[in-house]
């Protein structure tokens, strides 16, 4: 049997992406560089329209860059995708409404083939327990709350033990309380999965709480303006959100988002991004 890599790093090199509209064209991403080491958790934060979802879709091989390159553990995104090495969680749960919770989680297994040895599949029962859906295995999506549906989507993304887990504002539609609980659960699940994770969010608090590195982006053109390292230990706890280190990180992300000179007045005016 082939020796499988434990995980893959995410390498984005000098990537530019242009959308051509009627007459004019919009530069969605301009010369973006990024590296998420194997097994780490990184976030991308930025205002709406800064191209953060586009960047995630380039990494997932849903879109192709105009120039520059993306590699996942040295392979192209396409090769990684064909190797079923990617897990993707969308902003909406995107469940198949005719499939039960169990069947939705097992959809990737159906695609790869149940008896395939190409990916080491996790047991569905274990996953259902991990995301707290025990007792709902045979429920249909429309019988679940939004938070529960998103848990199913997370379990589905993890069932093939992906090397790279891509999260596109997965908790954006949830209320604040559920969101914090999901953040904690996500970290717990990630910690034991050894996968490299990349989260797109527009919440400063969420980005810092979850990540080892936060990439701050600006809009039009979409650029990475700063990278904030988060020196908080793991496992993370909600208490850490009151620590000096956390506030220091919040300020540095703010500096990146609003520019140094404006950050002093940032608290007093309406903000384009939400913070905890």
């Amino acid at each position, binding site marked *: 049997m082939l020796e499988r890599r434990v995980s893959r790093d995410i390498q984005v090199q000098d990537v530019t992406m242009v959308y051509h509209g009627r007459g004019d064209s919009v530069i969605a991403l301009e010369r973006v560089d990024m590296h998420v080491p194997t097994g780490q958790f990184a976030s991308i934060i930025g205002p709406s329209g800064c191209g953060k979802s586009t960047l995630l879709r380039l990494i997932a091989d*849903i879109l192709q860059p105009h120039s520059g390159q993306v590699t996942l553990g040295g392979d192209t995104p396409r090769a990684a*995708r064909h190797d*079923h090495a990617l897990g993707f969680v*969308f902003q909406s749960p*995107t469940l198949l409404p*005719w499939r039960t919770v169990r069947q939705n989680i097992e959809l990737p297994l*159906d695609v790869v083939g149940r008896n395939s040895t190409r990916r080491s599949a996790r047991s569905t029962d274990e996953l259902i327990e991990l995301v707290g859906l025990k007792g709902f295995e045979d429920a249909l*999506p*429309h019988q679940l709350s939004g938070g529960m549906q998103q848990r199913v989507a997370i379990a589905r993304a993890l069932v093939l033990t992906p090397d790279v887990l891509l999260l596109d504002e997965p908790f954006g539609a949830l209320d604040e309380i559920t969101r914090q609980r999901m953040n904690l659960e996500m970290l717990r699940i990630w910690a034991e999965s050894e996968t490299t994770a990349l989260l797109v969010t527009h919440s400063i608090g969420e980005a810092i709480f979850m990540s080892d590195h936060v990439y701050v982006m600006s809009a039009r053109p979409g650029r990475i303006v700063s990278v904030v390292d988060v020196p908080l230990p793991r496992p993370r706890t909600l208490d850490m959100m009151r620590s000096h280190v956390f506030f220091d990180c919040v300020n540095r992300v703010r500096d990146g988002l609003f520019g140094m000179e404006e950050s002093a007045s940032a608290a007093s005016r309406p903000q384009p991004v939400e913070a905890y």
Partner: protein
Amino acid sequence: MPGSGPSIRRRLAAVARPTITLVVLLAGLELLKRGGLLPVFVPAPSQVFNEIVKSPRLVTANLGPTAFKATLGFFIAMGIAVSAGSLAVLLRALYAPIYNLSVTLNSIPIIATAPLLALWLGTGPQVQIVIATLACQFSMLVGTVQGLQATDARQRELMHVLSASPFQMLRYLLIPSAVPYLFAGFKIAAPAAVLGAVTAEWAGAERGLGAMMLYALFSYDTPKVWLSVLLTCLLAAGGYGVVALVEKLVVRHGREVKLAD
């Protein structure tokens, strides 16, 4: 299931109310007729019912053939419309020709095609089957076309990230998501097939509800005309009911859709 008691009671209530209305209406008609207050072309319900008792053969000999022709036409149309609809979605170039042909066929007055078809196909039941097919194909084509396009971009991206093959895309996403739309089309098509068959029978048929209707009409047998109309309605409603029942058994996720076209 929690609360199955009240749900049964609610279901009984849902059946009881129209039943009571119907009984009251029929009783009222009966009384009015006996009192001599209704014109000659409105028979008493008992007279219509009496026709069944008098000659049950009349009912079976005409209901059977019409039901058979409508059902056969329905399934032929289903085969053609679902295949053509799938082809139209899969091959963009064929979309307009297929859709336009279906619309055109649907806009032709059925009764006008009957003499032509009789010339081409003879005067047997095949003419009525073809007309039943023509009468019900459109909604099934619309259902297929809409159903196969009913997935959203996220769902397709999901299958893409999972590296699903085109066949898996069809099997796990496109076909299951099309099913509610197919049934929406089938439910419109079933009564339309009955209507097509009966209309075609007017143009000349040995047996069938349309023929029975015509003979009764020409012999001024009002109760028999009413009986044939009633049977046609029951057959059309029955067709709808059977499709709706199959849908309930097949589609478990409670997602009923309406066709937009």
